[in-house]
């Protein structure tokens, strides 16, 4: 069988989702953002919500998310995405509203908005990309930076006495009464990507059923900020991030009435 015989439209098993447009993404080579964008686009397509989805893009590396996925978007001020999403969902309850935020946006500047939106039980989904660093501005220390991790602003490693402890936003969200589904996933391997896709789909469906707010944390890599190759960054994440940010569902009220 020749290559030409295999490459026929009827044999196509995987391609870039059509919602993800042809605009080249500005992310660094190997960045986890691209995979998560792809998953979001695939899930929206599978749910048939192309015309009824509103994303809220953050400030951070994902600030241009609106350029890549062909749905409605609203850009929010730094950290204020959950507040904007609250308004959108309340005014248009038939829409699927989600925010897409990094750790600097959601866990630092927007901590207040995030906690209160989740605690009010707004029917929104927060997708939280946790790469333990401020990627866009050049790799400074974030609230989620691990103890001992070296960044541009803590070149000798994060010191608890000086910088405090890393913040586990997902654990906090799981304790709030308004949240329905809180989970931590990652996108470094095929298996993990499939699991993350299922989690995003479940969160989107629950928000449309009006069950409360959902938080999907994606433990991600920032190979440029960590000064590693994409491959080494995945290994570093496996060795260092997962023990502190364990994967899995933290709260699942989907079956409760």
């Amino acid at each position: 069988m020749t290559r030409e015989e295999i490459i026929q439209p009827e044999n196509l098993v995987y391609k870039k989702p059509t919602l993800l447009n042809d605009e080249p993404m500005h992310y660094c080579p190997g960045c986890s953002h691209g995979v998560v964008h792809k998953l979001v686009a695939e899930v929206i397509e599978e749910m048939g919500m192309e015309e009824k989805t509103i994303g809220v893009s953050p400030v951070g590396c994902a600030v241009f998310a609106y350029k890549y996925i062909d749905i409605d978007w609203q850009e929010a001020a730094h950290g204020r995405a959950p507040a904007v999403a609250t308004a959108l969902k309340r005014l248009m309850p038939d829409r699927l509203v989600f925010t897409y935020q990094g750790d600097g946006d959601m866990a630092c500047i927007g901590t207040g908005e995030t906690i209160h939106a989740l605690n009010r039980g707004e029917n929104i989904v927060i997708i939280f990309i946790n790469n333990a660093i401020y990627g866009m501005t050049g790799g400074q220390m974030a609230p989620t930076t691990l103890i001992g991790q070296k960044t541009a602003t803590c070149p000798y490693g994060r010191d608890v006495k000086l910088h405090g402890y890393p913040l586990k936003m997902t654990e906090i969200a799981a304790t709030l009464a308004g949240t329905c589904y809180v989970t931590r996933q990652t996108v470094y391997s095929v298996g993990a990507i499939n699991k993350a896709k299922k989690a995003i789909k479940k969160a989107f469906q629950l928000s449309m059923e009006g069950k409360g707010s959902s938080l999907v944390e994606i433990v991600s890599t920032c190979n440029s900020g960590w000064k590693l190759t994409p491959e080494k960054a995945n290994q570093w994440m496996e060795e260092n991030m997962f023990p502190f940010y364990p994967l899995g569902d933290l709260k699942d009220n989907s079956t409760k009435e």
Partner: protein
Amino acid sequence: MAKFKGATVVDTNRCKGCNLCVVACPLHVLALTTKNVNAKGYPYAQTVLEDTCNGCSSCAIVCPDGCISVYRKKVE
């Protein structure tokens, strides 16, 4: 067991040469170019082992930029 033959098509100008597909491929079908670069100056992924791919799509699933399309056909 049914046997499958696969083929990958890489959008070479979208590829950023991150090497993640090369690592993800269980059959080591893909590799980055060593001499050529694309329009943006990145090395890009290409098929180096002909007739080996079984169309499992691992490379395409892990590709952060969605550059890879995978085709799969059952061998009669």
